[in-house]
């Protein structure tokens, strides 16, 4: 029964299927280069070579130097390192962030605040999820030398940060700037030289790469100590045998993303606009969470606010039954009973049902149509199935 069902996976902000070319690159490493990169014999040296080639590839894609790339187990670890080491090693006493950040940033900043190691200051946001840049400027002026940690695009509603303004505010107030680019790396042509951040976070599994692999870009000259100690890998910044399979997958995934970026951006942006107009036609009273203008939001995320109806309670379940895989919030919080902290923070109507559609390399127009049709059928159906 399941095999006959058409399934549209529209939850690419939670995770993405791996690209076959990435799997091939990884399986090749698994069979040919299984050595421990710290070993001095040929198995180890080969592994080390593969590791450093991957680092070079990634750094050249984003315009960085090899030594500015620190491989981690994923985005959460990279966010933690950026914030914790800024506080511990770089003399940061104040953290300026927003209530819309991913939990990896927000919880870590809250933890720093609770432990008394740094004070947390939240910048105001508007109902589309945009930062109040005047308030950001005020905070930065009040706490010069603070760490500003703001995500490039929100994972739930897609609203984009005005990176240039943040960069200016940070520079004017001598602040460090960490940008969580988990949702945007590989989706936009990020070059660290123009981007202007001190730290960038990347996670492979959000761009058709493997889970368990990511990196933190650390601008040259920022001297931090390891969070995970014991072994001296990653130039003494992160102990533990390097996950070279995952790292090779990450490099391949990023390479493919940059190669295909232009086409993909156009293709998926068109899907998104098409979906918006389909939804507006087919679902009366539909609204959208966040900014849905072409330049205001990430082209891979569309968060809908469906009008209140008793059908909403089982909506996500019914969508899944219809073969439409979406999310109500971010995956990390989707087990929690309480609503999305992002939607709460932008003052979204709690009576409306949020549905996040997120697109990726393997999304087709047929997926989009299937999703809209299914939603329409479910909302029009007379009875609610218990």
């Amino acid at each position: 029964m399941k095999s006959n069902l058409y399934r549209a996976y529209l939850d690419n902000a939670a995770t993405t299927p791996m690209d076959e070319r990435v799997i091939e690159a990884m399986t090749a490493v698994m069979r040919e280069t299984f050595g421990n990169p710290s070993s001095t014999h040929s198995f180890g040296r080969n592994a080390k070579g593969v590791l450093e080639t991957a680092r070079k590839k990634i750094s050249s894609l984003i315009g960085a130097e090899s030594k500015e790339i620190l491989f981690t187990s994923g985005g959460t670890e990279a966010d933690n390192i950026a914030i914790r080491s800024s506080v511990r090693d770089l003399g940061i006493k104040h953290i300026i962030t927003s209530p819309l950040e991913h939990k990896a940033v927000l919880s870590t900043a809250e933890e720093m605040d609770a432990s008394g190691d740094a004070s947390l200051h939240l910048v105001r946001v508007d109902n589309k999820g945009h930062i109040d840049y005047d308030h950001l400027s005020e905070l930065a002026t009040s706490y010069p030398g603070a760490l500003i940690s703001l995500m490039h695009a929100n994972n739930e509603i897609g609203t984009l940060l005005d990176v240039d303004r943040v960069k200016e505010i940070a520079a004017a107030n001598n602040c460090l700037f960490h940008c969580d680019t988990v949702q945007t790396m590989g989706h936009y042509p990020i070059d660290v030289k123009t981007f202007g951040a001190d730290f960038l976070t990347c996670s492979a599994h959000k761009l058709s790469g493997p889970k368990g692999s990511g990196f933190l870009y650390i601008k040259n000259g920022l001297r931090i100590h390891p969070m995970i100690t014991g072994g001296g890998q990653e130039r003494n910044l992160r102990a533990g045998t390097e996950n070279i399979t995952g790292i090779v997958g990450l490099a391949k995934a990023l390479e493919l993303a940059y190669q295909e970026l232009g086409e993909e951006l156009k293709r998926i942006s068109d899907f998104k606009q098409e979906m918006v107009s389909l939804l507006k036609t087919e679902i009366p009273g539909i609204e959208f969470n966040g900014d849905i203008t072409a330049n205001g939001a990430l082209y891979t995320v569309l968060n809908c606010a469906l009008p209140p109806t008793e059908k909403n309670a089982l909506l996500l379940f019914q969508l899944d039954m219809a073969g439409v895989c979406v999310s109500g919030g971010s995956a990390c919080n989707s087990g929690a009973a309480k609503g999305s902290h992002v939607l709460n923070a932008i003052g979204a109507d709690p009576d409306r049902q949020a549905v996040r559609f997120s697109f990726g390399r393997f999304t087709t127009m047929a997926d989009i149509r299937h999703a809209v049709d299914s939603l329409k059928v479910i909302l029009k159906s007379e009875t609610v199935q218990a």
Partner: protein
Amino acid sequence: MNIYLKALLYLHDRIDLNKNRMLQTPIYLDNNATTPMDPRVLEEMLPYFNRSFGNAASRNHSFGWTAEEAVDIARERVAKLINASPKEIIFTSGATESDNLAIKGVFEMYAAKGNHVITVTTEHKAVLDSCKHIEKNGGRVTYLSPDSQGMITLDQIREAITPETILITIMYGNNEIGVLQDIPAIGKLARENNILFHTDATQAVGKIPVDVEADHIDLMSFSAHKMYGPKGVGALYVRRRNPRVKVTAQMDGGGHERGMRSGTLNVPGIVGFGKSCEIAMNEMAEESKKLSAMRDRLERELLTMEEAYVNGNPEHRLPHVTNISFKFVEGEGLMMGVKDIAVSSGSACTSASLEPSYVLKSLGLDDDLAHSSLRFGLGRFTTDEEIDFAIDHVKTAVNKLREMSPLWEMFKDGIDLKSVEWQEH
């Protein structure tokens, strides 16, 4: 061609290769550093790359549930291998992270109870550096010195215990010399004194029976890539009852892994880890018998040479490891001389530098002898032919180096080298 088909073809090629392959050099005898992946593990992982690729935290659709279910099965397999319950397994990125989480996490969580930790000088750097970290943060650490065979005694531990002691962390099997401590007795001693017991069992799990109940273990680190699984995945066992143990998270975020370790779960890696544990469970008895016979033969043959010594207690040792010092052989020359076998002269994590192994130095070896030691780590794919080759290769290299060594000549002439006064040049 379909990726699965390709991968499966490769797997079958590889299995065939293993049966009939010619001896290929270099021969891998460094399975303590890392192990090649078992093809069965890779086969288990493949569907989770791009078919069942969901995020295990996605609760609203079948991709998420399928991923979660796969993680549950893997968690059961991992738990079963060490006689734990699945809820006691916290998945991490590897044993180093597990060691960090255990030691720093206990130190922070139990700060009100005390600040003293007991460990041993021959621990892995992941443990020693975590201990140094807590010393910087107001902790006190006692580093016990083992005897010349790498063993520590219960009395040494007993004497070190203070009312402030919150944690004893002692590794199960040493990564360089393979020595096994008396873990059940140490665990019992810790329990009697109401002190938590952590063990880094990275080298032991999957190789010998490890039972967290019988061994009275409260926290235990281990990783997949030391047991024919993938790199980048490991676990921390955290006891849930008698006593219930808690650790402070070292990474914050979505609250995965019962709040102790945030971050999207590495589903394929975890699935691979589960499979490696299952295979180990089924094949450990036979495999360890086979490996210890091979190891013993290798050791016996190499010890027929003069002035060759085994490091570590030969009675209490992992079945697949031997560490042998060759006196009157220069260390770097030795590594160059045995280039057709991949072995290690120290632990992999410190071997990038030319520092003599601190583990061997803890046993009382001088720098020269530590440098002229080789660690052999046999593994699942090691064959008798490879052992034959290794015996011959090492003997040849050592003999050749000694022929060129004036020290060896003096020794053979019966000159007591300690009595020689060396002139400065």
